[in-house]
Protein backbone atom coordinates (compact mmCIF):
# COMPACT_ATOMS: atom_id res chain seq x y z
CA UNK A 1 0.00 0.00 0.00
CA UNK A 2 2.65 2.49 1.03
CA UNK A 3 4.98 3.61 -1.69
CA UNK A 4 8.68 2.97 -1.19
CA UNK A 5 9.20 6.65 -0.43
CA UNK A 6 7.05 6.33 2.70
CA UNK A 7 9.11 5.23 5.66
CA UNK A 8 7.61 2.75 8.10
CA UNK A 9 8.22 3.77 11.69
CA UNK A 10 7.99 1.33 14.59
CA UNK A 11 8.54 1.44 18.34
CA UNK A 12 11.91 -0.13 17.52
CA UNK A 13 13.30 2.23 14.88
CA UNK A 14 11.57 5.46 15.89
CA UNK A 15 14.31 7.18 17.88
CA UNK A 16 17.04 6.26 15.44
CA UNK A 17 15.04 7.24 12.36
CA UNK A 18 13.74 10.58 13.61
CA UNK A 19 16.90 11.92 15.17
CA UNK A 20 18.21 13.92 12.24
CA UNK A 21 16.68 16.22 9.69
CA UNK A 22 13.02 17.06 9.23
CA UNK A 23 10.74 14.08 9.74
CA UNK A 24 6.96 13.89 9.35
CA UNK A 25 5.23 11.00 11.12
CA UNK A 26 1.63 10.02 10.37
CA UNK A 27 0.07 8.13 13.30
CA UNK A 28 -2.63 5.87 11.89
CA UNK A 29 -4.51 2.57 12.18
CA UNK A 30 -6.48 0.29 9.87
CA UNK A 31 -9.76 0.92 11.68
CA UNK A 32 -9.57 4.70 11.34
CA UNK A 33 -11.55 5.95 8.33
CA UNK A 34 -10.05 9.46 8.23
CA UNK A 35 -6.57 7.91 8.37
CA UNK A 36 -7.30 6.09 5.12
CA UNK A 37 -8.29 9.44 3.70
CA UNK A 38 -4.99 11.02 4.73
CA UNK A 39 -2.84 8.16 3.38
CA UNK A 40 -2.64 9.39 -0.25
CA UNK A 41 -1.68 12.86 0.98
CA UNK A 42 1.16 11.42 3.04
CA UNK A 43 2.33 9.34 0.08
CA UNK A 44 2.31 12.39 -2.18
CA UNK A 45 4.31 14.37 0.38
CA UNK A 46 6.84 11.54 0.65
CA UNK A 47 7.40 11.81 -3.09
CA UNK A 48 7.52 15.60 -3.12
CA UNK A 49 10.04 15.86 -0.31
CA UNK A 50 12.11 12.84 -1.32
CA UNK A 51 15.73 13.53 -0.41
CA UNK A 52 14.89 16.65 1.61
CA UNK A 53 12.69 15.39 4.41
CA UNK A 54 11.62 11.98 5.71
CA UNK A 55 7.92 11.21 5.53
CA UNK A 56 6.58 8.09 7.16
CA UNK A 57 3.80 6.32 8.99
CA UNK A 58 3.50 4.66 12.36
CA UNK A 59 0.76 2.10 12.96
CA UNK A 60 -0.50 2.80 16.50
CA UNK A 61 -2.03 -0.67 16.78
CA UNK A 62 1.28 -2.43 16.29
CA UNK A 63 3.41 0.20 18.02
CA UNK A 64 1.81 1.45 21.25
CA UNK A 65 4.90 2.89 22.93
CA UNK A 66 5.66 5.87 20.72
CA UNK A 67 2.02 7.10 20.59
CA UNK A 68 1.75 6.96 24.36
CA UNK A 69 5.07 8.79 24.78
CA UNK A 70 3.67 11.68 22.71
CA UNK A 71 0.29 11.50 24.47
CA UNK A 72 -1.53 10.77 21.25
CA UNK A 73 -5.22 10.27 21.96
CA UNK A 74 -6.66 10.74 18.53
CA UNK A 75 -5.80 9.81 14.98
CA UNK A 76 -4.91 10.80 12.41
CA UNK A 77 -2.25 12.92 14.05
CA UNK A 78 0.83 14.23 12.27
CA UNK A 79 3.94 15.05 14.24
CA UNK A 80 6.83 16.92 12.69
CA UNK A 81 10.30 16.46 14.16
CA UNK A 82 13.39 18.51 13.54
CA UNK A 83 16.64 16.82 14.56
CA UNK A 84 14.72 14.62 16.95
CA UNK A 85 12.80 17.46 18.61
CA UNK A 86 9.02 17.67 18.28
CA UNK A 87 8.38 20.84 16.27
CA UNK A 88 4.74 20.67 15.11
CA UNK A 89 1.54 18.77 15.91
CA UNK A 90 -1.37 18.51 13.49
CA UNK A 91 -4.48 16.77 14.78
CA UNK A 92 -7.03 15.43 12.32
CA UNK A 93 -7.18 15.84 8.59
CA UNK A 94 -5.14 18.54 6.93
CA UNK A 95 -4.64 19.71 3.39
CA UNK A 96 -1.50 18.75 1.54
CA UNK A 97 -0.51 22.36 0.88
CA UNK A 98 -0.71 23.19 4.60
CA UNK A 99 1.40 20.21 5.61
CA UNK A 100 3.92 20.98 2.85
CA UNK A 101 4.20 24.56 4.10
CA UNK A 102 4.98 23.30 7.62
CA UNK A 103 7.69 21.00 6.32
CA UNK A 104 9.18 23.81 4.22
CA UNK A 105 9.18 26.09 7.24
CA UNK A 106 11.40 23.70 9.15
CA UNK A 107 13.63 22.94 6.19
CA UNK A 108 14.43 26.62 5.79
Amino acid sequence: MASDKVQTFTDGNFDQDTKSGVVLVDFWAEWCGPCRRLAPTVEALAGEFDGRATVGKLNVDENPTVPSRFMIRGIPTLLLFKNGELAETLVGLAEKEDIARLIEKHLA
Partner: protein
Amino acid sequence: MADQEVVIIGSGPAGLTAALYAARANLKPLLIEGLDAGGQLMLTTMVDNWPGFRDGIMGPDLMAEMRAQAERFGTEVLAGNITKVDLAQRPFTIELRDGTRITTKALVIATGASARWLEIGSDRKLSGHGVSTCATCDGYFFKGKPIAVVGGGDSALEEANYLTKFASKVTLVHRRDTLRASKIMQDKTFANAKIEFIWDSEIAEVKDVEKGEVTGIVVRNLKTGDLRDLSLDGVFIAIGHTPNTSLFEGQLNLDSNGYIVTTDGTRTNVPGVFAAGDVQDHVYRQAVTAAGSGCMAAIDAERYVEGLPQDLNEAAHTVA
Protein backbone atom coordinates in the same frame (compact mmCIF):
# COMPACT_ATOMS: atom_id res chain seq x y z
CA MET B 1 -12.82 21.02 -16.41
CA ALA B 2 -13.96 24.60 -16.89
CA ASP B 3 -17.47 24.15 -18.28
CA GLN B 4 -19.54 21.40 -16.75
CA GLU B 5 -23.08 20.22 -17.17
CA VAL B 6 -23.35 19.04 -13.58
CA VAL B 7 -21.07 19.56 -10.62
CA ILE B 8 -21.68 17.67 -7.41
CA ILE B 9 -20.16 18.90 -4.16
CA GLY B 10 -19.63 16.20 -1.56
CA SER B 11 -18.68 12.53 -1.63
CA GLY B 12 -20.88 10.88 0.98
CA PRO B 13 -23.78 8.58 0.01
CA ALA B 14 -25.81 11.50 -1.39
CA GLY B 15 -23.03 12.93 -3.55
CA LEU B 16 -21.78 9.59 -4.85
CA THR B 17 -25.29 8.39 -5.70
CA ALA B 18 -25.99 11.67 -7.50
CA ALA B 19 -22.70 11.14 -9.37
CA LEU B 20 -23.62 7.57 -10.28
CA TYR B 21 -26.97 8.62 -11.74
CA ALA B 22 -25.61 11.71 -13.49
CA ALA B 23 -22.76 9.67 -14.97
CA ARG B 24 -25.15 7.02 -16.24
CA ALA B 25 -27.18 9.82 -17.82
CA ASN B 26 -24.03 10.79 -19.77
CA LEU B 27 -23.70 14.13 -18.02
CA LYS B 28 -20.00 13.47 -17.24
CA PRO B 29 -20.36 14.84 -13.72
CA LEU B 30 -17.51 16.43 -11.85
CA LEU B 31 -17.59 15.60 -8.16
CA ILE B 32 -15.64 17.86 -5.82
CA GLU B 33 -14.71 16.45 -2.44
CA GLY B 34 -13.19 18.09 0.59
CA LEU B 35 -11.15 16.93 3.55
CA ASP B 36 -13.95 14.84 5.02
CA ALA B 37 -14.31 12.84 1.84
CA GLY B 38 -16.64 9.86 2.14
CA GLY B 39 -18.69 11.63 4.77
CA GLN B 40 -19.88 10.40 8.11
CA LEU B 41 -19.79 6.71 7.18
CA MET B 42 -15.99 7.00 7.18
CA LEU B 43 -16.28 7.37 10.94
CA THR B 44 -18.39 4.28 11.51
CA THR B 45 -17.58 0.62 11.82
CA MET B 46 -20.23 -1.92 10.82
CA VAL B 47 -23.23 -0.60 8.89
CA ASP B 48 -26.09 -3.02 9.37
CA ASN B 49 -28.90 -1.03 7.79
CA TRP B 50 -27.63 -0.62 4.25
CA PRO B 51 -29.95 -2.87 2.25
CA GLY B 52 -28.28 -5.66 0.33
CA PHE B 53 -25.62 -6.58 2.85
CA ARG B 54 -27.23 -9.12 5.12
CA ASP B 55 -24.11 -9.42 7.28
CA GLY B 56 -23.42 -5.70 7.27
CA ILE B 57 -20.55 -3.83 5.65
CA MET B 58 -17.87 -1.59 7.14
CA GLY B 59 -18.64 2.10 6.57
CA PRO B 60 -15.34 2.97 4.85
CA ASP B 61 -15.64 -0.13 2.64
CA LEU B 62 -19.16 0.84 1.61
CA MET B 63 -17.94 4.30 0.65
CA ALA B 64 -15.04 2.86 -1.35
CA GLU B 65 -17.52 0.69 -3.28
CA MET B 66 -19.85 3.63 -3.95
CA ARG B 67 -16.96 5.71 -5.19
CA ALA B 68 -15.67 2.98 -7.51
CA GLN B 69 -19.17 2.50 -8.88
CA ALA B 70 -19.61 6.23 -9.60
CA GLU B 71 -16.17 6.33 -11.26
CA ARG B 72 -16.91 3.24 -13.32
CA PHE B 73 -19.51 5.24 -15.25
CA GLY B 74 -17.30 8.24 -15.84
CA THR B 75 -17.55 10.46 -12.76
CA GLU B 76 -14.51 12.67 -12.45
CA VAL B 77 -13.48 13.19 -8.83
CA LEU B 78 -11.55 16.28 -7.82
CA ALA B 79 -10.15 16.85 -4.34
CA GLY B 80 -10.27 20.51 -3.50
CA ASN B 81 -11.16 23.15 -0.99
CA ILE B 82 -13.99 25.31 -2.32
CA THR B 83 -13.58 28.90 -1.20
CA LYS B 84 -16.43 30.53 -3.08
CA VAL B 85 -19.59 29.67 -4.97
CA ASP B 86 -21.48 32.19 -7.11
CA LEU B 87 -25.06 31.17 -7.72
CA ALA B 88 -26.24 34.59 -8.87
CA GLN B 89 -24.79 34.33 -12.39
CA ARG B 90 -25.23 31.57 -14.91
CA PRO B 91 -23.42 29.35 -15.42
CA PHE B 92 -22.73 28.97 -11.71
CA THR B 93 -19.12 29.49 -10.67
CA ILE B 94 -17.10 27.51 -8.16
CA GLU B 95 -13.69 28.68 -7.01
CA LEU B 96 -11.11 26.47 -5.35
CA ARG B 97 -8.38 27.48 -2.98
CA ASP B 98 -5.69 26.69 -5.56
CA GLY B 99 -7.26 29.21 -7.95
CA THR B 100 -9.16 26.73 -10.13
CA ARG B 101 -12.44 28.13 -11.48
CA ILE B 102 -15.20 25.81 -12.57
CA THR B 103 -18.46 26.77 -14.19
CA THR B 104 -21.51 24.55 -14.38
CA LYS B 105 -25.09 24.58 -15.63
CA ALA B 106 -26.43 22.60 -12.70
CA LEU B 107 -25.15 22.09 -9.19
CA VAL B 108 -25.93 19.34 -6.69
CA ILE B 109 -25.01 20.22 -3.13
CA ALA B 110 -24.32 17.19 -0.94
CA THR B 111 -21.93 18.69 1.59
CA GLY B 112 -23.49 16.86 4.50
CA ALA B 113 -23.19 17.77 8.13
CA SER B 114 -20.29 17.76 10.58
CA ALA B 115 -20.15 16.80 14.21
CA ARG B 116 -21.05 19.63 16.53
CA TRP B 117 -18.68 20.66 19.31
CA LEU B 118 -19.62 21.89 22.75
CA GLU B 119 -18.23 25.35 21.90
CA ILE B 120 -16.90 25.91 25.38
CA GLY B 121 -13.37 26.55 24.18
CA SER B 122 -11.63 23.89 26.20
CA ASP B 123 -13.23 21.08 24.17
CA ARG B 124 -11.67 22.19 20.88
CA LYS B 125 -8.34 23.03 22.50
CA LEU B 126 -8.06 19.45 23.72
CA SER B 127 -9.14 17.91 20.43
CA GLY B 128 -6.78 15.01 19.71
CA HIS B 129 -5.58 15.11 23.30
CA GLY B 130 -8.54 13.39 24.89
CA VAL B 131 -11.54 15.12 23.34
CA SER B 132 -12.94 13.41 20.27
CA THR B 133 -15.97 13.33 17.99
CA CYS B 134 -15.00 9.96 16.52
CA ALA B 135 -15.34 6.93 18.82
CA THR B 136 -14.22 4.48 16.15
CA CYS B 137 -11.05 6.51 15.51
CA ASP B 138 -10.02 7.23 19.05
CA GLY B 139 -11.65 4.71 21.41
CA TYR B 140 -8.52 2.59 21.18
CA PHE B 141 -6.52 5.16 23.16
CA PHE B 142 -8.69 4.76 26.25
CA LYS B 143 -8.12 1.12 27.11
CA GLY B 144 -8.90 0.63 30.79
CA LYS B 145 -9.55 4.35 31.33
CA PRO B 146 -12.66 6.22 32.48
CA ILE B 147 -14.26 8.49 29.89
CA ALA B 148 -17.40 10.56 29.31
CA VAL B 149 -19.80 10.68 26.39
CA VAL B 150 -21.97 13.76 25.90
CA GLY B 151 -25.39 13.48 24.29
CA GLY B 152 -28.68 11.61 24.50
CA GLY B 153 -29.49 10.52 20.97
CA ASP B 154 -28.88 7.25 19.14
CA SER B 155 -25.36 8.25 18.13
CA ALA B 156 -24.38 9.09 21.71
CA LEU B 157 -25.69 5.79 23.01
CA GLU B 158 -24.11 3.86 20.19
CA GLU B 159 -20.76 5.50 20.94
CA ALA B 160 -21.14 4.89 24.68
CA ASN B 161 -21.79 1.19 24.11
CA TYR B 162 -18.99 0.90 21.57
CA LEU B 163 -16.54 2.64 23.92
CA THR B 164 -17.21 0.18 26.74
CA LYS B 165 -15.10 -2.24 24.66
CA PHE B 166 -12.11 -0.12 25.65
CA ALA B 167 -12.93 2.13 28.60
CA SER B 168 -13.10 1.01 32.21
CA LYS B 169 -16.20 3.13 32.70
CA VAL B 170 -18.32 5.39 30.49
CA THR B 171 -20.23 8.28 32.05
CA LEU B 172 -22.99 9.60 29.84
CA VAL B 173 -23.69 13.28 30.41
CA HIS B 174 -27.07 14.42 29.12
CA ARG B 175 -28.88 17.75 29.32
CA ARG B 176 -32.28 16.22 30.06
CA ASP B 177 -33.62 13.48 32.32
CA THR B 178 -34.83 11.36 29.43
CA LEU B 179 -33.08 10.11 26.32
CA ARG B 180 -34.00 10.95 22.76
CA ALA B 181 -32.53 7.67 21.51
CA SER B 182 -34.60 4.77 20.22
CA LYS B 183 -36.06 2.25 22.69
CA ILE B 184 -33.76 -0.53 21.51
CA MET B 185 -30.64 1.61 22.07
CA GLN B 186 -31.90 2.76 25.48
CA ASP B 187 -32.52 -0.81 26.61
CA LYS B 188 -29.08 -1.87 25.44
CA THR B 189 -27.47 1.08 27.23
CA PHE B 190 -29.31 0.67 30.54
CA ALA B 191 -28.29 -3.00 30.52
CA ASN B 192 -24.61 -2.13 30.08
CA ALA B 193 -23.00 -2.28 33.52
CA LYS B 194 -20.08 -0.10 32.43
CA ILE B 195 -22.30 2.89 31.58
CA GLU B 196 -23.40 5.42 34.19
CA PHE B 197 -25.60 8.45 33.67
CA ILE B 198 -25.43 12.04 34.81
CA TRP B 199 -28.81 13.59 34.02
CA ASP B 200 -29.87 17.21 33.56
CA SER B 201 -26.27 18.25 33.15
CA GLU B 202 -23.79 19.72 30.75
CA ILE B 203 -20.02 19.93 30.61
CA ALA B 204 -18.95 23.39 31.74
CA GLU B 205 -15.26 22.78 31.17
CA VAL B 206 -12.84 20.12 30.01
CA LYS B 207 -9.63 20.04 31.99
CA ASP B 208 -6.67 20.52 31.60
CA VAL B 209 -5.86 22.88 28.75
CA GLU B 210 -2.62 23.96 30.45
CA LYS B 211 -1.32 20.40 30.61
CA GLY B 212 -2.49 19.69 27.07
CA GLU B 213 -4.40 16.56 27.99
CA VAL B 214 -7.76 15.62 29.41
CA THR B 215 -7.66 15.03 33.15
CA GLY B 216 -11.32 15.58 33.94
CA ILE B 217 -14.48 17.57 33.40
CA VAL B 218 -16.53 20.09 35.33
CA VAL B 219 -20.19 19.13 35.16
CA ARG B 220 -22.93 21.69 35.69
CA ASN B 221 -26.34 20.53 36.85
CA LEU B 222 -28.81 22.57 34.80
CA LYS B 223 -31.57 22.34 37.39
CA THR B 224 -29.57 23.28 40.48
CA GLY B 225 -26.62 25.09 38.92
CA ASP B 226 -24.28 22.96 41.04
CA LEU B 227 -20.81 22.29 39.67
CA ARG B 228 -18.90 19.12 40.28
CA ASP B 229 -15.53 17.76 39.19
CA LEU B 230 -15.07 14.38 37.63
CA SER B 231 -11.68 12.83 36.94
CA LEU B 232 -11.42 11.01 33.64
CA ASP B 233 -9.18 10.62 30.61
CA GLY B 234 -11.38 11.21 27.61
CA VAL B 235 -14.50 13.02 26.39
CA PHE B 236 -16.48 11.93 23.34
CA ILE B 237 -18.94 14.46 21.97
CA ALA B 238 -22.08 13.17 20.25
CA ILE B 239 -24.51 16.07 20.40
CA GLY B 240 -25.60 16.12 16.81
CA HIS B 241 -24.46 17.72 13.61
CA THR B 242 -24.32 21.09 11.90
CA PRO B 243 -25.03 21.27 8.16
CA ASN B 244 -22.08 22.37 6.04
CA THR B 245 -23.72 25.35 4.37
CA SER B 246 -21.49 28.34 5.11
CA LEU B 247 -20.56 28.57 1.39
CA PHE B 248 -24.20 29.16 0.50
CA GLU B 249 -25.25 31.66 3.15
CA GLY B 250 -27.00 34.61 1.56
CA GLN B 251 -27.39 32.74 -1.73
CA LEU B 252 -29.77 29.91 -0.87
CA ASN B 253 -32.71 29.74 1.48
CA LEU B 254 -31.54 28.09 4.70
CA ASP B 255 -33.70 27.24 7.68
CA SER B 256 -33.01 28.57 11.16
CA ASN B 257 -30.55 25.73 11.82
CA GLY B 258 -28.65 26.31 8.60
CA TYR B 259 -30.10 23.42 6.59
CA ILE B 260 -30.81 24.08 2.91
CA VAL B 261 -34.54 24.36 2.29
CA THR B 262 -35.68 22.08 -0.52
CA THR B 263 -39.11 21.87 -2.09
CA ASP B 264 -40.63 19.67 -4.71
CA GLY B 265 -37.97 16.98 -4.58
CA THR B 266 -34.48 18.39 -4.21
CA ARG B 267 -34.97 21.90 -5.59
CA THR B 268 -33.54 24.89 -3.77
CA ASN B 269 -34.80 28.41 -4.30
CA VAL B 270 -32.27 28.86 -7.14
CA PRO B 271 -33.32 26.98 -10.28
CA GLY B 272 -30.54 24.62 -11.31
CA VAL B 273 -29.24 24.18 -7.77
CA PHE B 274 -30.29 21.00 -6.02
CA ALA B 275 -29.51 19.69 -2.55
CA ALA B 276 -29.35 16.11 -1.28
CA GLY B 277 -28.51 14.24 1.89
CA ASP B 278 -27.88 15.57 5.38
CA VAL B 279 -27.26 19.13 4.18
CA GLN B 280 -31.03 19.42 3.66
CA ASP B 281 -32.34 16.69 5.95
CA HIS B 282 -32.40 16.92 9.71
CA VAL B 283 -35.16 14.35 10.06
CA TYR B 284 -34.09 10.99 8.59
CA ARG B 285 -30.29 11.37 8.27
CA GLN B 286 -29.69 7.81 7.11
CA ALA B 287 -27.16 6.64 4.55
CA VAL B 288 -29.96 5.12 2.52
CA THR B 289 -32.16 8.23 2.60
CA ALA B 290 -29.14 10.35 1.67
CA ALA B 291 -28.44 8.06 -1.27
CA GLY B 292 -32.11 8.21 -2.26
CA SER B 293 -32.14 11.97 -2.29
CA GLY B 294 -28.84 11.98 -4.22
CA CYS B 295 -30.55 9.93 -6.91
CA MET B 296 -33.47 12.39 -6.93
CA ALA B 297 -31.10 15.34 -7.23
CA ALA B 298 -29.34 13.77 -10.22
CA ILE B 299 -32.64 13.15 -11.98
CA ASP B 300 -33.80 16.68 -11.18
CA ALA B 301 -30.49 18.09 -12.43
CA GLU B 302 -30.65 16.01 -15.61
CA ARG B 303 -34.13 17.29 -16.41
CA TYR B 304 -33.00 20.83 -15.70
CA VAL B 305 -29.90 20.59 -17.93
CA GLU B 306 -31.88 19.08 -20.76
CA GLY B 307 -34.55 21.74 -20.47
CA LEU B 308 -37.20 19.14 -19.82
CA PRO B 309 -40.32 19.76 -17.76
CA GLN B 310 -39.37 19.37 -14.12
CA ASP B 311 -42.34 17.27 -13.22
CA LEU B 312 -43.14 13.93 -14.80
CA ASN B 313 -46.90 14.49 -14.55
CA GLU B 314 -46.38 17.78 -16.27
CA ALA B 315 -44.36 15.93 -18.93
CA ALA B 316 -47.16 13.43 -19.41
CA HIS B 317 -49.63 16.26 -19.92
CA THR B 318 -47.32 17.94 -22.40
CA VAL B 319 -46.98 14.74 -24.40
CA ALA B 320 -50.72 14.14 -24.28
